[in-house]
């Protein structure tokens, strides 16, 4: 099931094709006036091209066009289109719909899979380094926690038997242990987590999951948050996935991971702990309070969220990418911290 870089079929639409698609969709009357900002994210085969289409001299892009390098995962874009339709329907009547891009086209064009969606105004808040935390960052974290908890409240699945949740948790651990080469202390940590499954399963819930909820998939426009990149969305998933992944992605960004070696030693420990403390205070705890999750449950649920997020992204792509790497690194950090605490005590 894993794709090898050199065997991945690569595709890339040209600007000319995108121009013509936008014209065919009737989104621009004069396609010659379209100006593009072209961004390539990640490396092949996960690589993606995002075209921000501006009209004439307008300051904000009107449309966002996404295409994948690799045809095999290009179809994830179709899944994203369908996911957005479903979630829009599910959140109809709530203010959360305002946070979602509207899909104009999701399908094949010029032999490539393409997704065209509206551009949601706002800026990406990139909260610098841990040491330079400011009030704006704290406010941003609380804003994200509030959005996520409201989203989960609206999409919570009632009446799911705890046995079903326990089975899911157990499956995540098994898959994680099977796919990743784990260090000894991570195996010990996983064994401890397994012991918590029964207790945890009666305290956590299933709900809709974004699957890639991170600062780079969120834009802030005053008090409004818009959330995009829904290709890993699922209608029913573990509630801890999104908060855990958010915290993990932000910590990795602060530390320059995965380029930096987390296991380098004590050099990162202080910074990691400081960052994690900020995230706990301004993101995880407010989130837990709103969804009604006790703090002790949250602490146990987060590593399960990371393990599930890693597997979700890994299985969706069929190869390792930055997303699953982030979740795996954060899991390693938590496992290591737990080991250090156990040793100290």
């Amino acid at each position: 099931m894993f794709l090898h870089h050199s065997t991945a079929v690569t595709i890339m639409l040209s600007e000319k094709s995108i121009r013509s698609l936008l014209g065919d969709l009737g989104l621009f009357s004069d396609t010659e006036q379209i100006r593009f900002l072209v961004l390539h994210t990640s490396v092949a085969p996960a690589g993606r091209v995002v075209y921000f289409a501006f009209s004439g001299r307008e300051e904000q892009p009107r449309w966002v066009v996404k295409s994948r390098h690799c045809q095999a995962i290009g179809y994830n874009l179709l899944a994203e289109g369908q996911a957005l339709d479903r979630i829009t329907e599910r959140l109809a009547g709530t203010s959360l719909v305002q946070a979602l891009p509207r899909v104009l086209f999701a399908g094949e064009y010029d032999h490539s899979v393409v997704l065209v969606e509206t551009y949601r105004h706002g800026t990406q808040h990139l909260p610098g380094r841990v040491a330079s935390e400011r009030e704006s960052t704290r406010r941003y974290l609380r804003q994200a926690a509030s959005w996520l908890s409201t989203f989960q409240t609206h999409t919570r699945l009632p009446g799911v038997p705890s046995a079903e949740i326990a089975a899911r948790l157990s499956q995540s651990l098994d898959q994680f242990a099977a796919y990743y080469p784990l260090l000894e202390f991570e195996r010990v940590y996983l064994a401890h987590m397994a012991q918590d499954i029964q207790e945890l399963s009666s305290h956590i819930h299933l709900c809709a999951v974004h699957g890639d909820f991170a600062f780079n998939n969120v834009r802030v426009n005053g008090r409004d948050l818009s959330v995009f990149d829904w290709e890993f969305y699922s209608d029913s998933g573990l509630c801890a996935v999104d908060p855990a992944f958010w915290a993990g992605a932000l910590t990795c960004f602060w530390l320059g991971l995965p380029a930096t070696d987390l296991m380098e030693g004590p050099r990162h420990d202080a910074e990691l702990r400081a960052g994690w403390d900020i995230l706990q205070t301004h993101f995880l705890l407010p989130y837990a309070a709103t969804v009604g999750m006790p703090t002790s449950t949250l602490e146990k649920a987060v590593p399960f969220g990371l393990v599930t997020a890693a597997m979700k992204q890994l299985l969706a792509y069929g190869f390792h990418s930055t997303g699953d790497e982030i979740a795996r690194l954060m899991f390693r950090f938590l496992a290591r911290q737990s080991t250090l605490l156990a040793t100290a005590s």
Partner: protein
Amino acid sequence: MREVTQEIELVCPACRGNVVASGQAIHCPACCRSWPVQHGVPLFAENALYWGELEQARMCELNAMARQDGWSKAVDVFAGHLKDYITSEHRVDWIPLVGLSPSWRVLDMGAGWGGNAFPLCRHVEQVVAVESVPERTEFLSIRKEQEAARNLQVICASVHSLPLPENSFDLIILNGFLEWAAISKQGRPREIQKEVLARVRHLLRDQGCVYIGIENRFGINMLLGDNDHSNMKYTSLMPRFMASLVMRLGSSTQHFHVQAIERSYRTYTYSYWGYLKLLHEAGYRSIEIRGALSYNMPTVMYCLDHAHGFRHYLRDITPRSAKGRIVRSIGLAAGFPAFLKLLSPCFCITARQ
């Protein structure tokens, strides 16, 4: 990798007649000249000067190891710092500008380590990689064999005497090439570059396109002290005679290992307007110039007549280096397309006949 039906038929660089292959050599029946073939690569470049990121001796060691233990391992050992440059798929992120067709034949001039040529093999019918340094074509040939890139043809030749027939290519790539075109030939660098562009134009098919990835002479990175091709700071910003004088008088830390015909400033780059003029004079039409932070890995490309696109990108990034933060601030403050054209670090240029 795709299968190739037939390799391109080569012509004599001197008389332009068809050449024939016999054993380990290639002959021109018309003018009776011949060229050796080594490791499956025809060597048309005579008395080639060495150019490379590694010293010549280390490059030879790398090739020896690549043959024995695989090219990837050899790169790890001898050129680990270049690994991304050699293997990253981001090297061909400029592809959306040209819109490849699977039936195309592409020429990669100055193919180097194959950073562009190998990814392209997966997109098009045939890729011809031309490189003038035998040590580098040897590496390309080893990598080709080990990657089973059967639609890649490697040729060792100088751009000043190409064994390629006219009207043969749908796309010609000059990625980090044009600025070096004058180091191996006597004469005025700009005239030599113009000649090269005109020669390349004749190799294009009717609807063919040339892609040029190159630095901006006055790019913000140059103003902030990045090394120029001379291995010195600020030389691209100086009048050419002054840059030559500085090169003769000064000493530099070698980043590139270059055997040039003379120690003067010959690696000319130009401004946005300079490239437009040069390409017009070389006979090109439909010239489109995009800005890029790096043409080697153009992960971000923006229209230069629309400053908002680039500003939109800048708003969403947090550079880690002080230099990066300065570039970001200037970019956000510079709200006019003229600033972008003037200060963009690099250009990704497409032009047609």
